[in-house]
């Protein structure tokens, strides 16, 4: 278990819990970032910039402070 913010790049993880503000949580759920879903961090923006995330076929940007409030668990890397 770790915050989404600390997840290594290109490592799939499962979303466990969102501790983000209520309206942002609702928005993130609509964008597919919900408990149970798989998320990958594609890159981190420079100068403390946001994270580029992929959930399913949706890509979005999320600021670091919010990525710290999301708990994920890494998934075992699938072979082959």
């Amino acid at each position, binding site marked *: 278990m770790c915050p989404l913010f600390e997840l290594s790049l290109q490592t799939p993880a499962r979303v466990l819990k969102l501790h983000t503000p209520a*309206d942002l949580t609702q928005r993130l759920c609509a964008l597919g*970032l919900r408990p149970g879903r798989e998320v990958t961090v594609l890159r981190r*923006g420079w100068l403390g*910039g946001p994270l580029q995330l992929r959930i399913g076929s949706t890509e979005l940007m999320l600021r670091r402070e919010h990525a710290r409030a999301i708990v994920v668990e890494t998934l075992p890397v699938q072979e082959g």
Partner: protein
Amino acid sequence: MHRIALVGMPNTGKSTLFNRITGGNARVANWPGLTVELASHRILLGARMVQMVDLPGIYDLSGGAEDEQIAQSFLASTPLTGVIVLLNATQLDRQLGLALQLKALGAPMIVALNMADEARSAGITIDTAALGQQLGCPVLLISAKRGDGMAELKQALGQLPGQEVQLDFSHLAPAATFHDEEARLHHTHVSRPPTMPASITTRIDRWILHPALGLPLFVLTMFLLFQLTFAIGTPLQDALGSGLDWIKSTWLEPSLAGAPEIVRGALLDGLYDGVGTVLTFAPLIFLFFSLMAVIEDSGYFARAAFMMDGLMARLGLDGRGFVMLMMGFGCNVPALMGTRVIRDPKARRLTMLTIPFALCSARLQIFLFLCSALFTPAQAPWVLLGLYLASIVIALGTAWLLRRRFTSSEPFALELPPFRLPLFRQIRLRGWGETRSFLRMASTMIVTGVLLVWFLTHYPNEHHSYAAMVAQVLEPVLTPIGIHSEMSIALIFGFVAKEVVLGALSVITGMQGNALSAHLASSMDPVSAISFMLFTLIYVPCVATMATMHKESKSVWFTAGSVVWSLGLAWVLCFVFYQGTRLVSGWF
């Protein structure tokens, strides 16, 4: 009247579909949420006249964002014959819930799965018949961009029962209620390849979002956009200008020869010349927006916003603000219009306050002329570079100072849509739509401004006009910042448009080109020239910008505040610069 509402999440191609069905031109951009007012259009479906209404993009019917509330209150108060629910076929894993939410409200629905072409090439297959059975309504695969599936959609619309249904929002369940059902439907009826192939978008992103190369690439793109606009647009502008002059000298002047002096002067030198000057900008605006549409629709702006967000967040703005500021370097007017993508009113206003400080191409003309007149070829580029830096620092500084008054309450998570090739049809529609709205504005606000300036500079007489009197009144204010009366009249002209400042200078001095350069070089020292340029950079850009500011903010106070802030800041900074430099140079 039968009404059909178009509902969908941001970035599903709603406006494109609306344009497809109605043939109109609601604005389209590959960025969440550009539709501002509710666009509606009447179309004939079979034997029925139907009013199609395009609702703002919403994530969730129970959401609290402004757009979501607009959509809710429309749906809750308007009896509807049907609702088209538009979903992105590649993102059904998170979008089917919206259809389920509407179904639970009892809406007579047609579900249209857009971007069927993208889904196909990603290897996604959707069992629309089975999905339709589960949802209890027709489910169609379409591509609004290419026009695929339009006939089927119109047929389905024609087969709606025709009774008007009033949705009952008192039983609205939150979106999360439908997540399990959404996952089940997606699992059963949608199949996708186990591993997604590395898409073109991923490969382009590697360059465009590169920590070191990303920003230079973006600046280069914007630079090329401006270059192309002016390379093609300036000859068109000149041709239009000479055409208008020709009409004036061959038709208008002879036919008004018998009219009284005041009527002739006001109509020809005031109204016709003024409106003509503005009209010649139409080709530039058309080109600028058409090219902008290419970049916007491709999905590049969302990337630029991603890149700059880290820096901009510290200043109280977000990445989109930077994109708009860059647009402002071309022209402030479209940049102000572009802030519509920022859906939070406060965040949007903060961005709007920064844009008038962007050194636009009209101001650049003045600076280029003055720099070459008063500085050596070795000095001039540095002066210009300094002005660009001042422009950026003042714009961002304004945001930083006012960030606490305009704190955004927008849940900030922006979608980064995949790169898409824009279609010629959409680009043309966008260019034309913006040109039309510019001309509409020009016909009211700008005409008033132009007439006023003509009056001020010609009455009571040309040698002792009101403008000259105003310049005299302003003398105690402008002398401390090194601007003498000749130049202050030019500044008054600059209120209308920075494009006329040079023309005004040549009228006031009675000199042109090299003679004007020589005259300015002899009447101004470099310090007061820089002070004049600094003032020109900071004070109110032009009537068109002020009018746009008012139109977009819908607030006289906000517009007035922005004008007062720019004027005050211009004076204070020029005073500090001019007096400071003189003081320091006095020591040596």
